[in-house]
């Protein structure tokens, strides 16, 4: 069997972080090749390198097959018809004008290949997400894509839709297409995978065959021992400072109850899309919720009111540092004082820069700082407001190891002073190592709670569990 694509020794850096480190990958005709790994293991980067979006820093990619990527965010034009989307940018023309009749005539043959029965004149925005995905796959196939990469396509699909997609994938495999499939759902992998490349920290740590146990997959995926990277100093928990009770929002999360006590770090683990960030934002009052309540230090919190939340003693370090945490056009000082603008004391800003060991000055534009130092500024902004409970959403994403440990020390210092931390993190060793208890979310629900020091496969087993909706 000859490979459609052969990648050897692919290495890619983003600043100081090594996203990919000498990864080898072969994609053969007529196989479903699964890429498996934790969030941040390098799957998306690998896909982008294969698709030519990023050039590798080292390594070679060989192969003649053309390649199409179906991303989670679909590249369709919602206001155009199915037929127009299928032939986007290469619509059949007649006398210089778009030949709609011809497009309409050619569409059904393409739709048939993916088993989709829709009116070619229907607007794409009126179709379901699964149908839209099929249209994108049909379009890729019509461009004679020999290799089809599907980046977490099932994350947005219902069970029946997923079944349908897996059927079509099997059919395409039979036609000699090479498929690369990214998914977190281990049961799907067991159903369709011919080979599984497991990535961890940017390295390929093993290539597995079909019929491998989920236990083995999880072990390979997380397989790193928890060491003293996580200097958690546990406190004796005091009174409840944050009580999230039976919180629900249709389509996002359901019946979430989480209590965080004084001196405690409670982690929320789960896969991307499990609803963790949504719960954090709702508790902080950024987004509304349908049912349930949030209490801070025994007092009920008005819903959907960030000012009230801050006044009650909550703080939120959002997951998207540049998009939500920082004002990039402003200086370090201007960012630090954002929550406590009424305070005219400039000295406290200098003190905070020193205390956090931010490599930069108060007057410096914040965009000149490294990711880790920027994150310290976002955290510092909240420390100046002295919150009772700080919610940290992915606080160490894209942060180098040294700054990570400094952020953990800040967490320890807060809890030592009787404050509390709610830690949302996709970094399993971190959430286990730093939390006194770990709440695992899956599909918008609490799948279970584990004590600190639980194993990574215990967390993963809860996170990937299928809940029949």
């Amino acid at each position, binding site marked *: 069997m000859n490979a459609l694509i052969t990648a050897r020794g692919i290495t890619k850096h983003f600043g100081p972080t090594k996203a990919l480190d000498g990864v080898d990958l072969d994609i053969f005709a007529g196989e479903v090749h699964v890429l498996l790994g934790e969030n941040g293991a390098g799957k998306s980067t690998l896909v982008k390198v294969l698709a030519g979006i990023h050039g590798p820093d080292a390594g070679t990619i060989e192969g003649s097959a053309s390649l199409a990527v179906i991303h989670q965010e679909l590249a369709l034009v919602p206001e155009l018809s199915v037929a127009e989307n299928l032939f986007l940018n290469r619509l059949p023309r007649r006398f210089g004008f778009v030949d709609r009749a011809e497009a309409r005539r050619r569409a059904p043959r393409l739709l048939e290949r993916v088993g989709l029965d829709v009116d070619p004149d229907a607007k794409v925005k009126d179709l379901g997400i699964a149908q839209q995905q099929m249209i994108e796959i049909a379009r890729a196939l019509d461009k004679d894509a020999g290799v089809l990469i599907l980046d977490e396509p099932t994350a947005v699909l219902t069970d029946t839709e997923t079944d349908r997609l897996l059927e079509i994938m099997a059919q395409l495999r039979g036609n000699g297409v090479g498929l690369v499939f990214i998914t977190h759902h281990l049961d799907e992998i067991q159903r369709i995978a011919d080979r599984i490349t497991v990535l961890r920290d940017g390295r390929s740590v093993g290539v597995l065959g079909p019929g491998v146990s989920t236990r083995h997959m999880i072990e390979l995926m997380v397989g790193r021992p928890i060491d003293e990277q996580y200097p958690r100093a546990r406190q004796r928990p005091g009174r409840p400072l944050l009580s999230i009770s039976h919180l629900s929002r249709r389509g996002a999360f359901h019946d979430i109850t989480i209590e965080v006590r004084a001196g405690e770090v409670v982690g929320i683990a789960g896969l991307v899309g499990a609803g963790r960030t949504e719960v954090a934002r709702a508790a*902080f009052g*950024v987004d509304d919720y349908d049912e349930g309540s949030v209490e801070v230090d025994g007092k009920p919190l008005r819903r959907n009111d*960030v*000012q009230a*939340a*801050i006044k009650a003693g909550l703080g*939120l370090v*959002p997951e998207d540092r540049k*998009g*939500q*945490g*920082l*004002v*990039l*056009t*402003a*200086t370090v*000082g*201007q960012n630090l*004082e*954002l*929550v406590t*603008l*009424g305070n005219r004391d400039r000295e406290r800003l200098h003190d905070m820069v020193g205390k956090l060991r931010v490599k930069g000055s108060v*007057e410096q534009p914040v965009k000149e700082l490294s990711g880790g130092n920027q994150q310290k500024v976002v955290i510092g*902004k909240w420390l100046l407001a002295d919150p009772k409970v700080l919610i940290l959403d992915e606080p160490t994403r894209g942060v180098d190891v040294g700054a990570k440990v400094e952020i953990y020390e800040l967490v320890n210092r807060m809890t030592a002073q009787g404050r509390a931390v709610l830690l949302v993190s996709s970094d399993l060793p971190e959430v286990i190592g730093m939390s006194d208890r770990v709440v695992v979310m899956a599909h918008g629900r609490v799948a279970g709670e584990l004590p600190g020091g639980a194993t990574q496969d215990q967390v993963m087993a809860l996170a990937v569990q299928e809940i029949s909706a």
Partner: protein
Amino acid sequence: MTAIGNRKHAPKKYLAENGALAGLLVLVVAIAVAQPAFLTAQNLLNVGVQAAVIAIMAFGMTFVVVAGGIDLSVGSIAALAAMVGALTAGPAGLVVGALCGLVNGALISYGKLPPFIATLAMLSVARGLTLVISEGQPHETDAVVTFLGSNLTPVVPLPLLLMLLFFGVTGLVLTRTNLGRRMYAIGGNEEAAKLSGIDVRRQKLWIYALSGLFAAAAGLVLAGRLASAGPQAAAGYELDAIAAVVIGGASLSGGVGRATGTLVGALVLAVLRNGLNLLQVPPFWQQVVIGAVIALAALLDSLRRR
């Protein structure tokens, strides 16, 4: 605090970082060489008076632009305020201007309209109201309003002093008040501002109200100079005000902008108009030159940021 930080730098670096100021100096020298009459005290005072109306309007626009918005209604609000001022009294004009701004802010904050649309609507409404209350006729202004446009002493025109007063107020608001700080935060990253507990919607109300108030003041100064409020006064001035803000280095995507920049921007426009007149460039061509200068200023700024 950015304004303070810059004082430490050498003048050369200061000019490099303030392209508009460098441009203004080049412009002044070039025109003075070509037409020495430009440099007479009387003419320079004229330039100042010519700049005053646009500058005051542009200061209000600076708040809006720094906060990431735009206000197309300032020309119409200026006319409406001047007309109300002429028909009743000056202060009533200021109140009406601020109220128009509040309506803009409410449409944007609570109606969730894009600033472009909300203020475009106000541009039409305020102009229409001006025509309605004036019945299409110009009206004489009273002594108080006329005083605003007059010379305080034979050498110092009041519009010039008012421009400097509004310049000072704008600088203070931007750098020394919570409202000013919030403008930079909202314009720089509205989501981050919201997540930091800033009541973005309420702040926008005040920001657009300030813009309306400043536009009204500009309208009264304009009417004072002419001793008359006209129904078509200040038509199209919103574009000059935006141009002054942009030439001054503010970013239309928000978060960046300073009072000094806007002052320089307004002066660039006034010097250019005055110089082109002195050089007897035909008025049709003047428009072409001014447009080219605006494009050039924005282009240089975008190159510098890259």
